[in-house]
């Protein structure tokens, strides 16, 4: 088993290029803020950012000037309000326009599914009598080859790079996730290159003891990075809760371009990497996010010889 262990700095330097389509997925859960910040620090430009829910991480990346386009299905600060840096780009081209390509959630999920399954489109029963197809010519009607029924189709999405945060992986990149799965699997299988960022590195034997929990096989993973608290201020089921105070603070920070720049200077450009960010947050803030225990029962897979 060859190790794919590397640093986030090296993984981003090697695998994320200017002009790439990048998907940092994770529905509220498991959002790789660590990778987003590293991409900002390395000054990538002209990225197309794909995510169902852009969340704060893409507001920060858009504000930092790494992106020219956004592919998405729900644009907001979940449970709080707006993503103001993105809104400024869209509503007033401030400081520059941002191209949008917009779907519904099922449409975005289907795009990754088609990408992962190497299909020319994904059919779905959505978009009837909605204005979305008029706003996005990539949402098209198709007739069933087996009858008169008409459904809508969306094209495959094959990111150049998908970045997934997860609870644990082995050094070969066999990755286990529990809690909300979002479309981590689909986005990873659809991608040309995959970076996995984990809370914990585990032995291959740990993965093999519970194969039902493996979401992403090392087969499709290019780099494994161990970065505890790498999803903060989002959360990791069983490890830490969402730092909701920060999501609330972001509302005011992102409203004010100067405050946003100052935040990026302090928390992204002003730290060398995730370890410094975590140290800067301090142990008290992180300890407050630790959930109580709720262990799963264990199952017996049986030994068959």
């Amino acid at each position: 088993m060859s190790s794919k262990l590397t640093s986030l700095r090296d993984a981003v330097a090697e695998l994320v290029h200017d002009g790439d389509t990048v998907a940092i997925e994770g529905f509220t859960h498991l959002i790789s803020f660590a990778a987003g910040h590293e991409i900002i620090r390395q000054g990538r430009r002209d990225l197309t950012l794909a995510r169902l829910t852009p969340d704060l991480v893409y507001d920060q990346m858009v504000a930092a000037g790494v992106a020219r386009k956004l592919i998405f299905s729900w644009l907001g600060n979940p449970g709080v309000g707006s993503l103001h840096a993105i809104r400024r780009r869209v509503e007033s081209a401030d400081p520059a326009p941002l191209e949008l390509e917009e779907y519904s959630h099922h449409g975005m999920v289907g795009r990754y599914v088609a990408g992962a399954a190497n299909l020319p489109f994904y059919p779905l029963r959505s978009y009837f009598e909605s204005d979305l197809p008029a706003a996005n010519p990539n949402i098209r009607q198709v007739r069933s080859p087996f009858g008169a029924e008409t459904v809508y189709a969306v094209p495959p999405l094959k990111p150049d790079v998908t970045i997934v945060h997860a609870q644990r992986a082995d050094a070969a990149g066999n990755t286990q996730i529990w809690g909300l799965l979002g479309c981590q699997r689909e986005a990873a299988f659809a991608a040309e290159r995959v970076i996995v960022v984990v809370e914990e590195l585990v032995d291959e034997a740990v993965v093999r003891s519970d194969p039902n929990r493996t979401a992403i096989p090392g087969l499709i993973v290019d780099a494994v990075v161990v970065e505890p608290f790498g999803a903060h201020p989002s959360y990791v089921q069983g490890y830490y809760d969402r730092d909701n105070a920060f999501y609330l603070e972001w509302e005011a920070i992102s409203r004010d371009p100067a405050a946003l720049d100052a935040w990026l200077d302090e928390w992204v450009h002003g730290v060398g990497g995730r370890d410094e960010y975590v140290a800067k947050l301090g142990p008290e803030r992180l300890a407050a996010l630790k959930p109580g225990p709720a262990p799963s029962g264990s199952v017996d897979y049986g030994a068959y010889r």
Partner: protein
Amino acid sequence: MSADFSRSEMMIVAAARELAGQKVCFVGVGLPNIACNLAQRTVAPDLELVYESGVFGARPARLPLSIGDPTIVTGATATTGMFELFAYYLQGGLIDVGFLGAAQIDRFGNINTTVIGDYDRPKVRLPGSGGACEIAINAREVFVIMRQSTRSFVEKIDFRTSPGNLGGGADAARLRRDEGWLGRGPSVVVTDLGIHRFTETGEMRLESIHPGASLDEVRATMAWEPLLADPLPSTSPPSDEELRLIREELDPLGAYTR
């Protein structure tokens, strides 16, 4: 009976009561979240809460801060992934009620959550569809919760994100049938002033007015002349227990009720 309650509390309570007798509810972003969680603690203890983040049968121990909160996972019946959730559960026809919020709604229950103004150069860029478009099409029926104002109850929505009763009348029902939609569309809109249902022609009609709200206010907060049930009953005020659940358990910080 409690004399002192806010309009937001009345709205949330009235919305939760609508879920009595329902089995499977797809919980939308924002106000539907607290209404559905209140329903599970009151009128519908066996209600299966479905979250688009990929959870079936959530039993949240606290009010989820968002629809992707870890509390919807711990103790749930199943985490599904989003593909399975949208393809098998929603599109497969297992959702009885889709509970949605809206920025704009018209008299036929068509919903806008995308933009205010022109799509290409919007005055306000709203979040967009999320799962709402396919929920509006595939959930057996749709409940809506939103505050009334002249900005939200409009003659013509700026963008149709999620279809309701389209242009109304028999055409909407026929089109839903012909195109193979599973859902029959919106059946109730609960606001801070009252409860609207839909007539046979697919138009909203005020069926109940909340205590403390006046018909003048209802009219002043809608772009069209509302249809009124006759007689028009008054909504039962929140009980002490409903208010206690909202104030002490679900929303002690008042995020939804301010």
